């Protein structure tokens, strides 16, 4: 799956959330998008799977503009795991995961769909939840079920919006490990929005750090997680140490923001370097 994002601009009425975002991902990779709240991470993800239509620019999946594809066609290629899901009338776990087969199947559910779903439940080790009602599950279990639903779409690109936000540390590691394995064994391209710097640093192949609707920096965790970047993007004084082979961010203090945008005065890496690292041929 090749994903190319060209100069995407998206505004909610007068508020510009994405400002000329460019991204080029050519191979299966574990990509994490980071950045403070409201920086446009989720909006970018929604532009990729056609939930939102950017005002300018295009998103290309294997050279086809997603806006020219039908919703079902996109759903067959791009799986999506939302942040959280509440259902007023909850279904069982099996039925919830079977929804992931919706873009592939017709009116009825066939044996093959059920095979795929049970296979995924086994893989995620949540078979015992199969007949439970979705709303009776713990936050972590719900998250796993939603991941299972995303996988049931049998996508080539899997988008996840903070999938580990509700999980305890063990489940966080499990999910990240699983996503990493999916990238390698099934050649999936995984794009995940995350808030956890250190978990991301451990597992991501490519980290994209966003600020003010733009890609501020991108590269390997080692390249992106620098004290300067964290100060500029998050307004946080931090120390970056190396744990094993990966960087580990120790937050020290929140910097005082005098007025809107003042943090940006503390200059980190410029966007140009980020773009250079995002070139498809650039070794990561």
């Amino acid at each position: 799956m090749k994903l190319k994002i060209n100069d995407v601009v998206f505004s909610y009425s007068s508020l510009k959330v994405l400002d000329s975002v460019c991204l080029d991902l050519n191979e299966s990779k574990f990509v994490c998008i980071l950045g403070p709240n409201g920086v446009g991470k989720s909006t970018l993800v929604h532009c990729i799977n056609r939930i939102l239509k950017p005002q300018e620019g295009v998103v290309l999946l294997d050279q086809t503009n997603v806006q020219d594809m039908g919703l079902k066609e996109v759903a067959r290629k791009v799986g999506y795991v939302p942040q959280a899901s509440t259902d007023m009338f909850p279904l069982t776990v099996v039925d919830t995961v079977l929804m992931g087969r919706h873009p592939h199947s017709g009116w009825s559910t066939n044996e093959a769909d059920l095979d795929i779903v049970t296979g995924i439940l086994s893989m995620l080790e949540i078979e015992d939840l199969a007949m439970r009602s979705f709303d009776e599950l713990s936050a972590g279990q719900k998250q796993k079920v939603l991941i299972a639903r995303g996988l049931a779409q049998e996508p080539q690109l899997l988008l996840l919006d903070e999938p580990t936000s509700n999980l305890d540390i063990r489940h966080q590691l499990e999910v990240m490990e699983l996503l990493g394995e999916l990238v390698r064994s099934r050649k999936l391209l995984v794009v995940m929005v995350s808030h956890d710097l250190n978990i991301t640093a451990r597992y991501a192949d490519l980290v994209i750090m966003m600020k003010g609707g733009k890609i501020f920096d991108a590269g390997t965790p080692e390249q992106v997680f620098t004290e300067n970047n964290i100060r500029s993007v998050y307004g946080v004084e931090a120390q970056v140490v190396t744990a094993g082979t990966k960087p580990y961010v120790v937050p020290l203090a929140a910097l005082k923001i005098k007025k809107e945008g003042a943090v940006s005065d503390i200059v980190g890496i410029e966007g140009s370097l980020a773009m250079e690292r995002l070139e498809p041929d650039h070794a990561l």
Partner: protein
Amino acid sequence: MTSSPAPGTRSSRISMFSAFKGRNEVSIKGQYRSYLFRKFLFMMGCGILVVIISGISATLGSYDLDFLDVYQVIFNHILNWGEPETVKVFVVWQLRLPRIIMGIVAGFGLAIAGAAMQGIMKNPLADPYTTGISAGAGFGAAIAIILGLGLGAGEYAIIINAFLFSLIPTFIIIGLTRFRKPTPSMMVLAGIATMYIFTAMTSLFMISADPNSVQAVYIWTVGTLDKASWSSIPIVFAVMVLGSLFLQGMAKNLNVMGMGDAGAKSLGVNVERSRVLILVVISLMTAAIVSFTGVIGFIGLVSPHVVRIFLGSDNKFLLPASGLFGAALLLGADAVARTIIAPTILPVGIITAFIGGPLFLYLIMQRKKEVW
């Protein structure tokens, strides 16, 4: 990754992803099948209940007939079609059956429409009248009854007026979708707004109307099966069958839409279009029923909730089962309405509210969850 991962590791589990035939998987499928089977059994039970209540209902009245007589008369009459009608045949076929069939059709239609409305609104309080259909129909009927204004003559003026006016709130909502996204809250609020407008206009006419007309309007707004006749059944039946088939076809979309708009779009469902389409079909079905029976409440609200307790919320099963349960409930309520202070026949809407209200309170008390 190595080509042969160690057993039990996550990589080995992933490699089994599509071809896994383990014990657990078989047991999941077994459990799922028996779960589906239970749903079929419940639906069959509801179907049988409809047949039984229909039979009992046909025995009620001043002419004595027993349960078996009723079905014998029906079968004989169908087998010997065209033969002169005996008194028994006349009582069953002309006096009692139209009412029963209208009860089945209206109960089924209102309940399936209620289930679908709760689905698109993602709101357990929704019913077929949520978007203002009942208020529109009430106003249409009121101007036909009070002012004698309407398309068609006599009884038909009321029916046609009620039908046309009941669709106005839906048209208003569709018009609003040009400016606003058709979200559930927008639809509900627009429905409440049009409901107030129509209710106010109806009240205005009723204040200045003569007492007989006011009573007629009032009875109409409570809902009754009294006016059921063979001539009115085909049109309601046809609308109900087509509408139900359409809603059944949208059942999977409804399931997916329950998980939120973004989630549903990411699974390939055009949420806005589906929601408006389903609303239009619900409105047509409800309008067709209401224009012949008046506003029968509670069936469309209560039936889906009762069915959810037994079947869960999968719309593929919830819709038809709600329909069957609604038919049984309306028939039962009508049987009570005809017998409780016989020979006076109460409007069935009063009984559905009397049965539905306490039943609903009981169910709410039984459940710990917000919905079931």
